[in-house]
C-alpha cells in the first residue's frame, strides 16, 4: 500500500532561515495552496523526497542551489501541476476554469411569455370572433385559441434561461391568474337590499367602497410588482455570465 508521507524527512528537518532548500519548500507550499489539498500534499512530498535525495548525495549548498535550479521555480512546478488537473493531456497553457461561455442575452423570451400569457388570450378571443365569422362564436373557437396562446406563453416561461423553478411557478401563477384577481373583485356578489314591510333586508356580502378600492389597488400593485420583479431578475441574470452558467444547466435539465 501507498503511504502519503515517508516516516522520516531525512536531513532537511533543519529550519535554518538561509537554508535554500527550506526556503524553496516554504515557497512551494505557499504556491501549492491553490491546488486541491491532496494534489498539493503529494507535490510537496515528492519534491521534498527529491531534495532529501540531493542532500543525501551532497549536503553542500552549492549542490542544493543547482538542484533547485534544475527543478524550476516553485511557481513553475505548481503551474505544471495545475495544468495536469485539466483532462487535456497536452498540458495546454494553464486555462482558467471554464471561461464563461454561457449565453448572455436579452430577455425577449420572458417578455414574449408575458405578452402571450396576459393580453394574449384576450386578443385571441377577439381575433377568433372577428376572423371566425359565424364559426367565431362556437365554443371551440372561443376556448381553443386563447388556451393555445396561453400554453405557448407558459412554455416560454418554463424554458426561460434566467428563471429558476420558483420564478417560473410565480410567473405561471401571475400570468394570467394574478391579473384576473383585480378583475374578479367586480364579481364579488353585491349586496342586494329590498325593503319589505318598511324593513330593509339585505342579502349578500358588501365591501365598503373604500375597502374595495383599496383591495383593488393593492392587488394591482402586487401583480404588477411581481411582474416587474420577475423581469428585473431575468434581466440581471441575463447580463451576469456567472449566474447565466448555473441557469443554463438547469434549463438543460428542465427543458430537454
Amino acid at each position, binding site marked *: 500500500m501507498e503511504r502519503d508521507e515517508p516516516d522520516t524527512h531525512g536531513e532537511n528537518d533543519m529550519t535554518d532561515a538561509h537554508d535554500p532548500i527550506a526556503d524553496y519548500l516554504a515557497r512551494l507550499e505557499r504556491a501549492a495552496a491553490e491546488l486541491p489539498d491532496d494534489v498539493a500534499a503529494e507535490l510537496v512530498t515528492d519534491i521534498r523526497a527529491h531534495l532529501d535525495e540531493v542532500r543525501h548525495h551532497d549536503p553542500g549548498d552549492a549542490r542544493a542551489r543547482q538542484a533547485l535550479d534544475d*527543478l524550476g521555480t516553485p511557481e513553475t512546478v505548481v503551474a505544471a501541476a495545475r495544468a495536469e488537473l485539466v483532462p487535456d493531456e497536452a498540458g495546454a497553457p494553464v486555462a482558467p476554469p471554464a471561461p464563461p461561455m454561457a449565453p448572455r442575452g436579452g430577455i425577449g423570451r420572458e417578455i414574449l411569455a408575458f405578452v402571450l400569457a396576459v393580453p394574449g388570450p384576450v386578443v385571441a378571443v377577439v381575433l377568433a370572433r372577428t376572423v371566425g365569422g359565424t364559426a367565431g362564436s362556437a365554443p371551440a373557437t372561443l376556448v381553443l385559441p386563447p388556451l393555445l396562446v396561453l400554453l405557448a406563453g407558459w412554455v416560454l416561461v418554463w424554458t426561460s434561461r434566467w428563471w429558476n423553478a420558483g420564478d417560473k411557478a410565480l410567473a405561471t401563477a401571475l400570468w394570467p391568474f394574478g391579473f384576473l384577481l383585480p378583475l374578479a373583485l367586480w364579481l364579488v356578489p353585491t349586496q342586494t337590499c329590498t325593503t319589505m314591510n318598511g324593513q330593509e333586508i339585505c342579502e349578500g356580502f358588501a365591501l365598503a367602497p373604500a375597502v374595495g378600492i383599496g383591495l383593488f389597488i393593492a392587488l394591482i400593485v402586487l401583480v404588477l410588482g411581481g411582474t416587474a420583479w420577475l423581469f428585473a431578475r431575468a434581466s440581471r441574470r441575463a447580463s451576469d455570465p456567472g449566474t447565466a452558467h448555473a441557469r443554463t444547466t438547469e434549463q438543460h435539465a428542465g427543458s430537454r
Partner: protein
Amino acid sequence: MGPGNDTLTQLRRGALPHCVLAVIGEQDRYGFELVKLLSERSGFEISEGTIYPLLSRLRRDGLVETTWRESESGPPRRYYRLTTDGARALAGFQIAWVEFRDAVDDLLAITERSGASDGT
C-alpha cells in the same frame, strides 16, 4: 520564425508522458532517479520539478502505481511501477508513434527532394 518552436514544445509535451511510462516500464524507478534519467536526455528541455505533477497525473489516471520503500542508506524513496493499464497505454503509443514517425519522415523526405529540385 515559423511555428517550429511551438510545434516542438507540443510534440515534447505529447510524447513525454509515454516516455515516462517507457522508463518506468523498463524497471521500477524512484522519483529522483526517474527525473534524472529524463532530464539527462537532451531534447526534452523541461524543468525537473514539472515531472512530479506528470507522475501524479499518471498515478491518478491509473497508469502507474507507487510504493514508498526505505532505502539502505538514503531517505525513503517513492517507487513507480506500471499498471496493466499503463503497460497497455505504452504498447499502444509505441505502435502509433512508429507509424506517425514514419509518416512524418516520408513526408519530410518528399518535401526535401522537391525543395532541392526547385533549387530553393
